[in-house]
């Protein structure tokens, strides 16, 4: 590895100021990515400084990984090289917020909780209810395409992000999209940055459309003894005129995590729990309460309950934080994030549960009914295994996902670094489109300065 001596970072000090260049051991350790440590941490103040840092790295053949609070650095492969941790925490300003236009422009280091508070003052919000919400930054949320239960009604980042500014691999400052809610001017390059794990560019500004807070809200839970009946209920909702804000299905293992607080104790024990939230005028929420109750009854629910106002935020937060709750309970868990067609969800879950049984691991699933499954495999209590799944089990899981009847797209979002080092492929079997992704990478970052080796297809 072409690792420069500590003394050679004077250029970085010139760019960002001495106080914002750190080589102290303990801090360096905190910026480790999948077991790989950087040589230096730099905290730039703005896009111009980032451009200079990236140009410096390009010239010196150093590798840069951009980061916010670092909550999702565990996602992706270990970097093939990693010299500079580009800490964006100083770039935490709201650059433009026009509540009357329902548009917003922010720096990447803005923390989602702070932003949601600012928006709430104007009775608005962003539908980004994402894991690590107490620390997660906009840059990290966008770069890892964090999943939110609210996507059921509002779509994902790609659907409400209006444009971005960023610094590409050779230090060029570029942008795409804009700040207006409808725009087809030029290529939508910013869409490529969503979920790119910092491999294409360093995001320096993100523009969003914001959403008005609905006047009233309700949350409901229905419990079922089998996944077939639970998803039958989801299907009935999807085929009705109802358009809830979220429809989440917690399998038995997940239910233990989500409903384990004192407040929600009365909801346990449950086998398969479907949690629904609805919003709108009070008359609309009343109607959801009535009709969801009917649909749940027709779908053979064991129970259908409105969730009391005092419990709603706790349960919502636990659904939002699901991957984090799993990792806190089982740091060695392997968590797959799987995009799947709604009709194929029960068959996919059955397949996954058989794999878990055969391999003696526990499985917890949380499913967004619109077609995203979080499947967490973790070691059974008392098990001696170092890791809940090995490479061949991972392969088996990808195989089940790609079966024609499931036609699902999986990514192994979280797993222990040791598994990654033995060559487990987090993105599953080879797809032809990886070739195009490599070409896109070459266009943005021809010298592989940004997060090299972290992404799909060897990018």
């Amino acid at each position, binding site marked *: 590895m072409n690792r420069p001596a500590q003394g050679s970072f004077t250029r970085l000090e010139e760019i960002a100021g001495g106080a914002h260049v750190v080589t102290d051991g303990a801090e360096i350790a905190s910026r480790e990515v999948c077991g790989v440590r950087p040589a230096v941490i730099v905290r730039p103040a703005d896009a111009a400084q980032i451009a200079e840092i990236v140009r410096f790295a390009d010239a010196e053949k150093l590798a840069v990984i951009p980061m916010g609070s670092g909550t999702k650095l565990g996602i992706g492969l270990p970097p093939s090289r990693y010299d500079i941790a580009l800490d964006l925490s100083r770039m935490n300003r709201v650059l433009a917020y*026009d*509540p*009357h*236009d*329902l*548009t917003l422009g922010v720096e990447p280091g803005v923390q989602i909780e702070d932003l949601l508070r600012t928006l709430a003052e104007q*009775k*608005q919000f962003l539908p980004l209810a994402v894991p690590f919400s107490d620390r997660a930054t906009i840059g990290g949320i966008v770069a890892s395409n964090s999943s939110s239960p609210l*996507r059921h009604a509002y*779509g994902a980042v*790609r*659907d409400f992000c209006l444009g971005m500014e960023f610094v590409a691999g050779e230090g060029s*400052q*570029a942008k*795409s999209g*804009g*700040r*207006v809610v*409808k*725009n*087809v*001017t*030029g*290529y*939508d*390059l910013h*869409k*490529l940055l*969503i*979920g*790119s794990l910092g491999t294409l560019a360093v995001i320096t500004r993100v523009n969003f459309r914001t959403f008005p*807070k609905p006047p009233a809200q309700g949350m409901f839970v229905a419990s079922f003894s089998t996944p077939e009946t639970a998803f039958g209920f989801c299907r009935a909702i*999807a085929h009705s*005129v*109802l358009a809830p804000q979220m429809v989440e299905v917690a399998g038995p293992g997940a239910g233990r995590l989500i409903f384990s607080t004192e407040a929600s104790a009365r909801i346990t024990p449950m086998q398969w729990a479907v949690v629904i939230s609805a919003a709108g005028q009070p*008359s*609309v929420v009343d*109607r959801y309460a009535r009709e969801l109750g009917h649909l749940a009854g027709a779908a053979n629910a064991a129970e259908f309950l409105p969730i009391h106002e005092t419990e709603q935020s706790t349960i919502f937060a636990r659904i939002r934080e699901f991957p984090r709750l799993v990792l806190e309970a089982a740091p060695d868990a392997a968590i797959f994030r799987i*995009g*799947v*067609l*709604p*009709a*194929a969800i029960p068959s996919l879950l059955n397949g996954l549960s058989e794999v878990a049984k055969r391999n003696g691991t526990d499985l917890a699933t949380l499913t967004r009914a619109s*077609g995203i499954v979080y499947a967490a495999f973790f070691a059974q209590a008392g098990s001696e295994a170092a890791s809940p799944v090995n490479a061949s089990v991972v392969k088996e899981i990808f195989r089940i996902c790609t079966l024609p009847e499931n*036609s699902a*797209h*999986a990514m192994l979002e979280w797993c222990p670094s040791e598994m990654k080092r033995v060559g487990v492929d987090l*993105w599953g079997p080879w797809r*032809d*489109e990886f070739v*195009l*992704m490599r*070409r*896109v990478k*070459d*266009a*943005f970052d021809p010298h592989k300065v940004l997060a090299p080796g972290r*992404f*799909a297809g060897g990018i």
Partner: protein
Amino acid sequence: MRPQLIRELETLLGPKAVLSAPEDLMLYEYDGSVELGSPRCVVFPASAQDVAGIVRLANRLETPIVGRGAGTGLSGGAIARSGGIVVVFSRMNRILQVDAANLRAVVQPGVVNLDLSRAVDHLGLYFAPDPSSQKSCTIGGNVSENSGGPHTLAYGVTSNHVTGLELVLPDGEIVRIGGKSIETSGYDLCGLLVGSEGTLALVTEITVRLMRKPEAVKTLLAVYDTLDDTTESVVEITVRAITPAACEMLDGFTLRAVEDYVHAGFPKDCAAVLLIEVEGLKEAVEAQAAEITEVCREHRAREVRVARNDQERNLLWRGRKEAFGAMGRISPMYYVQDGVIPRTRLPETLRRIEEISRKYDLQIGNIFHAGDGNLHPLILFDERDREQFARVVAAGGEIMRHCVEVGGALTGEHGIGMEKNELMPLIFTPEDLALMERVRAAFNPAGRLNPGKVLPMGKACGEIRVPPMPASATIPT
């Protein structure tokens, strides 16, 4: 002896699938814009393999290729600017699969937008993007241009409704990107491809989301005596966070032309109307309609009418969707623009357009998607008057500059094409454009696919293109 290109294309596709006679080619020289360009030949592939064969042949003979759907585009995207082969997708017009359980359809690019909604109507479903040309425009064209329509205010543009594509790359390779599920891992290539205006690949299959038809719809017509009251109403609706499914504005001039043509019952003596639609559960629709009526009345709407039945509703929408056609009755030609502004800047922008109209002594009609700030000023002209046409282009450029100055964009749904590519530097820096250029080269290295579109060619930086004298007096609808 027929030229080698034509002979080889005929061998590949059969003689009936290749047009090369000048009188046939004339039909493919134009689209819905004021641009022109003559292809060497026009071909009609029946499959992705046909398309791949055409592309490989074009490479060997170093000939440009331009994809084309119904030719309704409004920025010259489907025009063979540098000659070459125009690939028309009208034979690839099958709906391959309707998957109602998963709210998806798989279609070939030549499927007409409205035909898809009609085909799934009995299932209570529809395809959300609804450009005014939806009776004739194709979904392949919608994908290229990332088309919108009135209801994109609530449901988003084409890119929000596409999950997967099959592409033929400029080297003839066939690749699938994305998929049928709501998300796939890796870079969002579909997000890049939709709206790339045929400059990165030819699309041969599209997987789209279908939506469930709402339980209730209410269509309101608010009638105003001043433009300012109309635009202030739109601002207030946005400010109050009311979210209609569509919010369209027609000014009095346009309205009179439309009314004479469609007889939808629009009042001919007003300054402007808003056509607003709310959709959803009936409780929500009632509440929103009441709130909108209140806003309009507070802003001195002289009348707020609610369509009483589907027939009245359809008539109002027919008036909106056929407005461009109605213009043909009062002017030989028009030039439609597509700028976007932040919604709160509507009042000043409409006043600015009035000033520009006076300054250049031109008639400008306004009919547009007010709810998302997407303007469509229609500048009327007579193509035989060259001097007038120069004023039209200058006025268009001035409107566009205003949009950029207030923080807007050059195009909301029509695309950049060959009409606005030299205006790109108004929005984008050389560094922005260089990166876009590199992304284009990553897919289309020889620049053989739809050359001269989207990105500036650097000949007249910052200037709107002065098109050749439009040859035809036909008004595209």
